[in-house]
């Protein structure tokens, strides 16, 4: 882990007009690790991922990919450097068949090799059965898997996953978690993901970065972050707010233990 970080962020600040979405956030992503970005809604997680993949340009701060600074270049250039991603709300070619979606993600090789690589990925993610169907007609969980296959087709060095398990049932979540771990181990792909399911996050992550209101409030191994008072407080605030809204108010200690309990339940 002493080697150059694959991705490093320094003092990254992103503003939308007067709103500061990300406030001087910095952390490193080391080669081969699974890093999860967690935090309450509106903490700036997706914005941060969009900064890394080049969708947003931060007003301040530096990003380095494998030691070289990422300047303006937009998502196309960053994708060509070896960063692939999935989106919270999916960005697939809905009118195109599953296979073509995945082939579109392949970045290198002659046409026939691209096709066979895509076929291999469909097999890896157990999608062969739907290979000729237009993506738009598939159920949501499968679409998520197709998007992952397309991202993997680029043979990325860094894979960014924005809520890969959102809206999935327990079985699908387990499959997805297993796939992410396999990708990380077998293909040696570094993974940065955003996820709300704390059980999964605690299970598969090597490290966590916790954001709250655009600031980094914790960074470390899952076990350390779990006991961090600042993190508990952030989730406590969130929990108190949620509970007050839905249950007409409970004492804050009970709400906090409910929030943390959901981490420990799995």
């Amino acid at each position, binding site marked *: 882990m002493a080697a150059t970080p694959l991705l490093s962020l320094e003092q990254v600040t992103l503003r939308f007009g007067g709103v500061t979405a990300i406030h001087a956030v910095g952390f490193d992503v080391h080669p081969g690790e699974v890093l999860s970005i967690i935090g309450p809604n509106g903490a700036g997680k997706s914005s941060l991922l969009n900064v890394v*993949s080049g969708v947003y340009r931060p007003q301040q701060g530096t990003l380095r990919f494998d030691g070289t600074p990422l300047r303006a270049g937009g998502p*196309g250039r960053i994708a060509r450097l070896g960063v692939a991603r999935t989106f919270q709300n999916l960005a*697939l*070619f809905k009118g195109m068949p599953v296979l073509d979606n995945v082939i579109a993600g392949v*970045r290198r090789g002659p046409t026939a090799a691209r096709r066979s690589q895509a076929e291999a990925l469909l097999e890896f993610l157990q999608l062969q059965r739907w290979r000729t169907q237009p993506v738009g007609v598939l159920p949501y969980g499968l679409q998520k898997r197709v998007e992952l296959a397309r991202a993997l087709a*680029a043979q990325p060095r860094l894979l960014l996953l924005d809520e890969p398990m959102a809206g999935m049932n327990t079985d699908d979540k387990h499959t997805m978690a297993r796939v992410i771990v396999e990708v990380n181990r077998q293909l040696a792909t570094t993974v940065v993901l955003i996820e709300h399911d704390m059980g999964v996050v605690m299970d598969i992550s090597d490290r966590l970065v916790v954001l709250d209101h655009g600031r980094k409030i914790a960074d470390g191994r899952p076990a350390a972050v779990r006991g961090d008072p600042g993190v508990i407080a952030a989730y406590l605030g969130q929990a108190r707010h949620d509970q007050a809204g839905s249950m007409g108010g409970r004492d804050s200690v009970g709400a906090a233990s409910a929030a943390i309990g959901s981490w420990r339940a799995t």
Partner: protein
Amino acid sequence: MDFFFEVLVGGLLAGVMYSMVAIGFVLVHKASGVFNFAQGAMVLFAALTFVSLVERGWPFAAALLATLVAMVGVAVAVGRGVLRPLAARPPIVLFMATLGLSFVLEGLAQWLWGAQVHALDLGIEDTPLDMGGLLVSRFDLVAAGVAAALVAVLSWGFHRTRAGLALRAVADDPLAALAVGIDLERVGRWVWSAAGAVALVAGLLWGARTGVQFSLSLIVLKALPVLIIGGFSSVAGALAGGLLVGASEKLAEVYAGPLLGGGIENWFPYVLALLCLCWRPQGLFGEPRVQRI
């Protein structure tokens, strides 16, 4: 009855000529959502360049190749000078830009090659051919064959090549295409080059018909009803729309023309297009626009 079929076949074959102009529009619209008003000017530019080279003693193949290179040059210049500075602007801005581009291309073509009318002889005899009792124009048959080959090549390109895949991806979702690292500018150059090649083919056939002259750029107006009927983003639709327009306008001219004082084939396609807009606004082959809110 023979007469009816003769008119019908003649109309269908004339329709193929409209389709070939319309296909150029479809290519650009499919990839970028822009109605390229300059397509007509590209037809004029291509035909005028070709015919001028031939008149200067170039052999057919060399002139064809040189014109093709010129059209690719136009595509690259459009990408640099128009599409890049206006990237991510609304389609209406790009439409206005293509309006300006059409003037630039028309001016450039005539500045380079002069404004006089040129006759273009492709070596195809325009004599009627007797096919089982029906008289069919030999030239029209050749045109139909060329159009069929063009559609086959384009369809192969769309579905079997890497550039075609990138193009379909961009047409489907430009942001997703960007996210997987597809170079939008390169796809733009490809599409405009293909539209230029189609303009060349259309320019040669139309030029051989009507002579190569300024009014060639006005065939945009013939393509518009074809596009409205066939849908703006379907090559098959452009073909079907052209056939429908060609056949119906000729039949209307022959059978309803005398009742209305004749000359109705000029406005009849627009009436057809109007009806189509009322009944199926996205065109026969177009996909309905779904707005998610």
